[in-house]
């Protein structure tokens, strides 16, 4: 994987996943290392982000490297009409690796074709967000001790959530059972379901989250956004049914953990945060170790 760009979770083999997760485990033991001394990492965020950008920058800083970049395209020459190609070619001159988030789908793949340094995709529109997927895998393996033969519930917006799509595709490598809970208008797209069917794995669809809570090992929550509904009445009907609260978690398996890619708005009640099942902030911390591992492996250090 040295010098290769990381664009889509589909580009990775099972062995590639494991080498990232194993390296991340070592960074969790020892996150402060000077291995990026003398390296410059560019973070180009054409679209805002809190966790992804800060955890990448934090990862570089803890490893002794320097960060350049922008967190908003309006502070860059993009505002003057510069093409993505020109921005990438310019920044390649000043850095050893580029982390980028861009609102257009396919932008990261295109950047990797023109760039002379590796590109790490930190989200290209609704398409891919592979580092989030790897930190989700890390969090699942860490809390369950394995990735194989698990029961995973995906709850909320399964249609537009790119983190859901990537994680479902990645988990089809591990013989999991999928419990898909969403309003009918936000079901998992057939292009993603295709991956489950190709491997002949079991999947079940529900509209009521309470049906799955006692069956599963992982609950992956997502936010349902008002703007996804053409009819506001439809949104009002579903919004309260997809809020995770203490009573929904009263009879879970003891090993159950709740994951969420964050930001959360109101889909998990605040008093769930103190329950042993809540894992989403730890999950965001794992993002630091996983991103350290990705930088190390791609730079061949």
């Amino acid at each position, binding site marked *: 994987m040295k010098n290769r760009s990381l664009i*889509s979770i*589909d580009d990775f083999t099972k062995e590639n996943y494991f080498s990232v997760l194993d390296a991340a485990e070592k960074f969790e033991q020892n996150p402060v290392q000077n291995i990026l001394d003398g390296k410059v990492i560019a973070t180009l965020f054409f679209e805002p982000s809190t966790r992804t950008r800060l955890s990448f920058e934090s990862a570089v800083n803890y490893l002794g490297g320097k960060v350049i970049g922008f967190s908003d395209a309006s502070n860059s020459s993009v505002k003057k009409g510069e*093409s*993505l*190609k020109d921005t990438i070619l310019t920044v390649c001159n000043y850095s050893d690796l580029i982390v980028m988030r*861009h*609102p*257009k*789908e*396919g*932008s990261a*793949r*295109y950047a990797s074709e023109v760039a002379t340094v590796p590109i790490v995709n930190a989200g*290209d*529109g*609704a*398409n*891919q967000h592979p580092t989030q997927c790897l930190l989700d895998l890390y969090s699942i393996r860490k809390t369950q001790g394995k990735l194989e033969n698990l029961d995973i519930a995906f709850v909320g917006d399964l249609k537009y959530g790119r983190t859901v799509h990537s994680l479902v595709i990645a988990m089809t490598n591990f013989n999991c059972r999928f419990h898909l809970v969403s309003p009918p208008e936000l079901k998992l797209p057939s*292009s993603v379901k295709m991956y489950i069917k190709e491997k002949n794995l079991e999947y079940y669809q529900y509209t009521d989250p309470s049906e799955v809570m006692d069956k599963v090992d992982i609950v992956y929550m997502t936010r349902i956004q008002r703007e996804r509904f053409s009819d506001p009445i439809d949104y009002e009907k579903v919004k309260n049914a997809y809020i995770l609260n203490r009573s929904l978690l009263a009879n879970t398996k003891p090993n159950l953990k709740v994951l969420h890619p964050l930001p959360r708005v109101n889909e998990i009640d605040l008093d769930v945060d103190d329950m042993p099942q809540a894992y989403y902030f730890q999950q965001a911390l794992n993002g630091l170790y996983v991103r350290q591992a990705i930088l190390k492996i791609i730079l061949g250090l």
Partner: protein
Amino acid sequence: MEQEKKPIKELVVSAIENGTVIDHIPTQSVFQVIHILNLDHSDNQILFGTNLDSSKYGKKGIIKVSNKYFKPIEINKIALVAPTATLIIIKDFLVIEKKKVEIPDTIETFVKCVNPNCITNHEDVLTKFKVIDKTESKLKCIYCEKITEKKNMTFK
């Protein structure tokens, strides 16, 4: 002694002296083929027919273009919208070559990605697709990973 002439099958669409015949076109695709090959703006003599009887397919369409031999990229376009088509090269009223069109494994430059938010529809990027289903002409964009199907396919 004069040789006895064989009865000639009557042609619904007249024969051409030189050029290419595109036969076995699905009837609903005839006008799309004309359009993507830009034949509606061509100066060549063109004859076409649709809803003709076909022993193989029930109904078919046919297009005959005089003095025109298609380039590989044009043949790829035909294959995408009319996968059952046969190309017949005619010289001096004789069939020189007959071949089935074939969809290649990758399609570059001439199909537009169906996804309005794809980078190829916003920057000066040539499109590239992996053909994931040859009979249904399903193309997966190598950039945004969305699938463009025959029914919503448009050409650059």
